[in-house]
């Protein structure tokens, strides 16, 4: 299962984004993946490989301003991944994922503004830690306790948390109030400054790939299997002796950490943070990405973010006013007729659910 990915990964390391070599990477990815299809009819690795190659080549064919846009999309895809872990795998409806995204953004913005800390090796872990901490606090409060919390309570609790954070950020002068914190200094590594452009793009893409692989490992482990069981039938998992609430709190916290990482990248990429970033609008935005792409598959979240943002960008010139209406209609259609998202057009239900046990064996075989 991991083989095609690792081949592509090696190709990335060797090529470092040269156009000619990028094409080679495509060939290298396609070869074993095709064999795989014949052997086990696995579609997922192909989809992942295609997305990765497309993402690697994107800055080479896109104009500069589009590369900046693509960087933003990649960051949002990372954010979508965090929500997918929580909802797609563990079945916890978090309507407040932006709380962790935005609070990390605010956190690193304050670090940069008040303490002049912009070193990438400090700010990204700091952002992740902030997201992790907030998620641990909120998730611990909402999910743990003597009585298991109802799904409705958790979703409304997270929604309320996000809304309250939005109000707080709007009214708190230290955080810049309505205007947020503008003109954040760029991230640095030694003497190098990461400004918008291809370097930032590849940095973000690299982080996404690493986080993606970690998540992939996580959801295919025993832990991930228990999570999927939690999503499908919580009571049964509890009867097997798992502490369902603890599992939920752990994955919620991990999701918060990933969201925090995405949020800190977003803050530095955009150069400012504003109250919407912690609020309900962004929280629901990430829900849309994952529903569109297909929850319960990691790549679905990434694809969803790319498609929603891409189409929105493409339409926003001429159809800015009606785009949200179209988005709503599409969302309704997806919920009614394709509850597993767009990915379910190419990916069978069997592979989505059944890939856990099989994936594990192959992980051990992988070099």
């Amino acid at each position: 299962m991991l083989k095609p990915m690792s081949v592509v990964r090696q190709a990335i390391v060797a090529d470092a984004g040269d156009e000619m070599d990028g094409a080679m990477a495509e060939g290298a990815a396609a070869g074993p993946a095709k064999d795989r299809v014949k052997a086990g009819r696995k579609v997922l690795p192909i989809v992942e490989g295609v997305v990765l190659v497309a993402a690697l080549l994107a800055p080479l064919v896109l104009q500069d301003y589009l590369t900046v846009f693509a960087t933003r999309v990649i960051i949002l895809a990372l954010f979508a991944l965090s929500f997918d872990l929580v909802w797609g795998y563990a079945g916890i409806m978090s309507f407040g994922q932006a709380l962790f995204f935005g609070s990390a953004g605010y956190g690193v913005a304050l670090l940069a503004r008040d303490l002049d800390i912009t070193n990438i090796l400090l700010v990204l872990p700091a952002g992740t830690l902030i997201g992790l901490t907030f998620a641990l606090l909120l998730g611990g409060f909402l999910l743990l306790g003597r009585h298991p919390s109802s799904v409705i309570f958790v979703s409304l609790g997270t929604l309320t948390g996000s809304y309250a954070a939005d109000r707080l950020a709007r009214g708190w002068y230290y955080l810049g109030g309505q205007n947020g914190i503008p003109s954040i200094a760029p991230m640095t590594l030694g003497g190098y400054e990461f400004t918008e452009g291809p370097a930032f793009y590849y940095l973000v893409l690299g982080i996404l790939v690493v986080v993606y692989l970690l998540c992939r490992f996580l959801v295919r482990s025993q832990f991930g299997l228990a999570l999927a069981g939690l999503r499908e039938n919580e009571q049964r998992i509890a009867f097997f002796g798992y502490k369902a609430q603890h599992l939920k709190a752990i994955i919620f916290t991990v999701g918060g950490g990933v969201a925090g990482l995405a949020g800190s990248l977003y803050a530095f990429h955009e150069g400012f943070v504003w109250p919407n970033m912690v609020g309900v609008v962004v929280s629901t935005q990430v829900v849309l990405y994952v529903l569109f792409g297909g929850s319960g598959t990691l790549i679905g979240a990434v694809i969803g973010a790319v498609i929603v943002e891409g189409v929105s960008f493409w339409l926003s010139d001429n159809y800015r006013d009606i785009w949200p209406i179209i988005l709503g209609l599409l969302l309704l259609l997806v919920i009614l007729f394709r509850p597993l998202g767009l990915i379910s057009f190419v990916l069978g239900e069997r592979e989505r659910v059944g890939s856990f046990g099989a994936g594990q064996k192959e992980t051990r075989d992988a070099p």
Partner: protein
Amino acid sequence: MANAFVAAFEILSFGAIIVLIVLGLGIIASMMGIFNFAQGEFVLLGAYVTYLAYAKGLPIWAGMVAAPFLVGGLGFVLEALIIRRFYAAPIVAMLGTYALGLIIRESVRGLIGGFYLTVPEPIGGSIDIGAMHISAWRFTIIVITLLVMGGCYLLLSRTSFGLRVRATLENPSLARASGISTPLIYGATFAFGAALAGLAGALIVPVFSLFADLGLRFLIQGFVAVMVGGVGSFIGPVAGAGVIGTLSAALPWVMAPVVADVLVFVLAIVFIKFRPQGLIAGKGV
């Protein structure tokens, strides 16, 4: 003394507005188990209908009377076409109604633009009690809220329709076996909840003016109120709305509004965590 009275009136009238908005939300949540994210947009539509009547030169009260019927009708149609598919899955229902709300909100935004449109109060001026002046329209809202609340209570507890609704809530299969058409009851209940939202929107538009995010402003407050009050009964959400509305109107008088705003939500969530059944537990009216 006069200040305290004005403050008390402000708090009371805001509490009444929240109760009015939560009524429909609470009925749909309690009787059908659906947390309707589009409820805020039903409020918005009610406000929009009233504005349309005003803009076309009709009397404002005509718009206010028409609003609940139009929005209720729309609710009935939406229930039959879409909401009906969500009953088994509460989370999917949230997402589906969110999508519906998004469509309605953005359509209205397209129609009115990004403006704040004002609608005059049909009953203007103020009521003078000695040296104190209170807004006549806000006073009317309080009176109408009380009437509507009483009416809903009577409808659910004293009429045969109310009996059917409660029967459907408590035991759908037995209700079906007794010859009650549960789909029709669900449709009617949803339409009724939507109509109440439409009425709320129509009544509050002179106070808050019309803008696309009008409903969104109250939605989360409404949900929190329903949870605090307790899902499953008619009285529960109303009581919750009274508490939340009063608190959110009263606290800003004693502390910074931002802190008050957040504090209400934090208190509410903590309360629900330790008393998940809400203020008033149990099913029924």
